[in-house]
C-alpha cells in the first residue's frame, strides 16, 4: 500500500497537481476519442458503400446469379454444334402475390448459340388486378452472364386481370463462350408483387 501512495507534500498540493495533470490528460483523451469516432464514421460509411460495391462485384463475377435485365442484341455468333447444354426452368410465386406460375416445359437441351423460345404461364387467382415482376436467378452463378435473353417477360412488370391467364414467352440463347465444364444450368424465376415506384 505505502509504496503506491507515498506523497511528500500536503493533501492540497497533491490534489492541485492531480487537477493540473488531469486537465492535460483530458485534452489528449478527447483528441484520441475523436479520432476513434472517425473510425466509427468510416466503417458506417463502408457498410453503405458495400451495397454498390457488392453489385459491381456481382456483375463482374455473376456471384449472385443475376442475369442481365435488358435484351441482348441478336448475336451473329455461330451455333456451337459440338456440344449441348441443358437449361432447367424453375418458377416460384412469392408471398403476397396470388398467382399460379409455371413453365410449360421443365427443361430444354440446346446448342450454345441456338435461339430458343420457352413459354411460362401465369394465372391471377385473385379477384383484383395485380401487377407482378419476375426476378431471375441462374445457378451455377458463373453461367449467369452467358445466358442471353432476347425477349423476356421479366424485363417489365406484368399485369393480370382477375382470373386472367397469360402466356409469357422467353427468347434466349446461350453464349458460345460458356465455359466447357458447364453442361447444365438452372434458370429460376420468382414472381414478386410489383413494387410501386
Amino acid at each position: 500500500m505505502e509504496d503506491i501512495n507515498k506523497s511528500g507534500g500536503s493533501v492540497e498540493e497533491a490534489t492541485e497537481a492531480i487537477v493540473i495533470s488531469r486537465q492535460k490528460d483530458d485534452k489528449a483523451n478527447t483528441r484520441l476519442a475523436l479520432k476513434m469516432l472517425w473510425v466509427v464514421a468510416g466503417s458506417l460509411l463502408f457498410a453503405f458503400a458495400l451495397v454498390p460495391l457488392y453489385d459491381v462485384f456481382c456483375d463482374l463475377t455473376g456471384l449472385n446469379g443475376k442475369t442481365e435485365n435488358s435484351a441482348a442484341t441478336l448475336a451473329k455468333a455461330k451455333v456451337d454444334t459440338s456440344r449441348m447444354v441443358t437449361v432447367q426452368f424453375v418458377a416460384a410465386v412469392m408471398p403476397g402475390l396470388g398467382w399460379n406460375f409455371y413453365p410449360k416445359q421443365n427443361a430444354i437441351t440446346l446448342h450454345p448459340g441456338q435461339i430458343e423460345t420457352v413459354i411460362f404461364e401465369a394465372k391471377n387467382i385473385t379477384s383484383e388486378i395485380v401487377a407482378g415482376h419476375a426476378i431471375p436467378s441462374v445457378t451455377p452463378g458463373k453461367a449467369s452472364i452467358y445466358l442471353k435473353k432476347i425477349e423476356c417477360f421479366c424485363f417489365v412488370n406484368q399485369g393480370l386481370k382477375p382470373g386472367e391467364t397469360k402466356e409469357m414467352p422467353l427468347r434466349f440463347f446461350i453464349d458460345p463462350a460458356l465455359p466447357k465444364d458447364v453442361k447444365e444450368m438452372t434458370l429460376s424465376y420468382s414472381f414478386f408483387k410489383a413494387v410501386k415506384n
Partner: protein
Amino acid sequence: MSTVTVAHHEEHHDHPTGIMRWLTTTNHKDIGTMYLTFSLIMFLVGGSMILGIRAELFKPGLQLMNPDFFNQLIGIHALIMIFAALMPAATGFANWMIPLQIGAPDMALPRLNNWGFWLLPPAAILLTLPFTLALFGIGDGALATGWTFYPPLSLQGGIGVDFAIFSVHLLGISSVMGSINIIVTLFNMRAPGMTLMKMPMFAWGWLITAFLLVATIPVLAGAVTMLLTDRHFGTHFFDAAGGGDPILFQHLFWFFGHPEVYILLLPVWGFIPQILQTFSRKPMYGYKAQVYSLWAIGALSVVVWAHHFFTAGMPVPALLYFMYSTMAISLPLAVLFFCWIKTMWRGSMSFETPMLFAVGWIILFGIGGLTGLVLADVAADAQYHNSYFVVAHFHYTLFAGGIMGIMAGVYYWLPKMTGHMYSEKLGKLHFWLTAISFNLTFIPQFFLGLAGMPRRIPDYALQFAEFNMISSIAAFVLGLSQLLFVYNIVSCIKGGKKATDKVWEGAEGLEWTLSSPPPYHSFTDQPVVK
C-alpha cells in the same frame, strides 16, 4: 494511505447517494459493478427463455407454445445472451480491472462511460417489450427471425423486428462508447513505466476487442438501418422485387458477426492466462507469442465471414478462400492453447474455483474450437449447416468459452471487488454441476445434428426423442445450478471471511497491491512500473 482516505472522504461529501449515485456515477468501479449486475440479471432472463425452449423440446410434438412464440424465444435468447449478458460482463470487468491493472485513477472518459452503461437497460427493455405488448394485443410479439435478422423473413415480420432493430442500435452505440473509452484509457492512462508490451494480458485482449468493435459494430448498425428503411421507407436494399439482394444482408451481417465471436472471446483469452499463472505460481508462458496471436486472430477474424453461409451459394474459389482462411485461425489459436498449457506445466498448481473454471474452460473451449474446424470444411458444412451440430458447437465456444470463462473471472476478482471471500465449497459445487450438466446438455446435440436434426424448429422426428430428453433434463440442471452462483455472489457481497489485499498466493499485478475492496478512488498517486 492517508492521501487515499482523505481524497475518498472529500469526494464523498458532494456525492449523491441512493439511486442518484448510480444514475450519475462516473466512477469506474461503480460503473463496472452496474455492468456486471446488469449482465447477471440478463443472463438469468436469457437463460429462462432457453429453458422454455428446452421444455418444449423435451418431447416431440407441440406441447407448451406455438411455433411463432418458440421462434421469438430463440432469437431473443441469443440477442440477450450475446449483447446483454456476455458483452456487458466483459465491459464490466474492463471498467473494474483495467484502471486497476494499468495503475490509472479512473477510465479516461468517465462521463461517456456512464452514458454507455445507461443505454443498456432501455435496449434490454426494447428487446423484450414486444412480449408484454403482445399480451395486451399490440403487435404479434418479439423478433421471430432468430438473432440474425435474415431478410426476406425480417422484412415480413411484425413490430418485434423494429423494436429489435432499435435495440441493436442502442446496444451498438453503447459498446462503441465503451470501446472508445477503453482504447483511450489504454493508450493514455498507463502508469509510468508500463509499456504496451508490459500490459497485463487482459488489457491486450480488450484493446484488440475494442478495435474490432469500433470497426465492425457500425457495419451491423448500417445493415439493420437498411433493413429498417426497407421495411418502412420504400428502399430495396434487400428486397429482390425492387432489385435488392437478400444475400447482401448476410454479407453485411456476418462481416460484423464473425468478428463478434472474437469480441466475445478475446477479453476471456486475456484474463484466463492471468488466472492460470496465479494458480500455477509461475510466470505466464510466451507473453509475446500470446500478444501476437491475439493480433493475428483479430486481423483474421474480419476476412473470414462468409463461412457462416457456405450453403447460400458461392463460386468454388470463394468457398475455398473462406474455408482456408477460417482454418488458418486455428494456427494462432493453437499457439494460445500451447501457451496456456505450458503456463501450467510443472507449476505448483492448486485448484481453487477460478482455476477449476479456467482448466475446465481450456478443455471445453478446445472442443468448441475443434468442432469449428469441422464446420469450416466446405464439404462437411453442407451436411451440418443449420443443424444442432452448429448449436452445440457455438455453445461450446460461447457458453464454455465465453460464460464459463467469465465465471472464472468472477470468482478470481470477486474477493478483490467485495473484500470478502466467497464460499469455496459452493463455488466448487457450482463448477462441477455446471461443467457436467453443460456437457450432458450439448454432447447429445452434436449427435442430434449429425443425425440431421435442424435447428430453430419447435418439433422433431421421433428418432431424436431420447437425446432431446437427456439434453432438456441436463439443461434444467445447468440452469438451476446458476442459482448457486447468484447465491454465492450475493452472500459474498453481504459478508464473509475478510479477503487479504493479495487474495491469492500467486497473484501478480497492480490490482493486487490495492486493498480489498479497493478505495473508491484508487491510484490518486500514480504507481511506477519498473
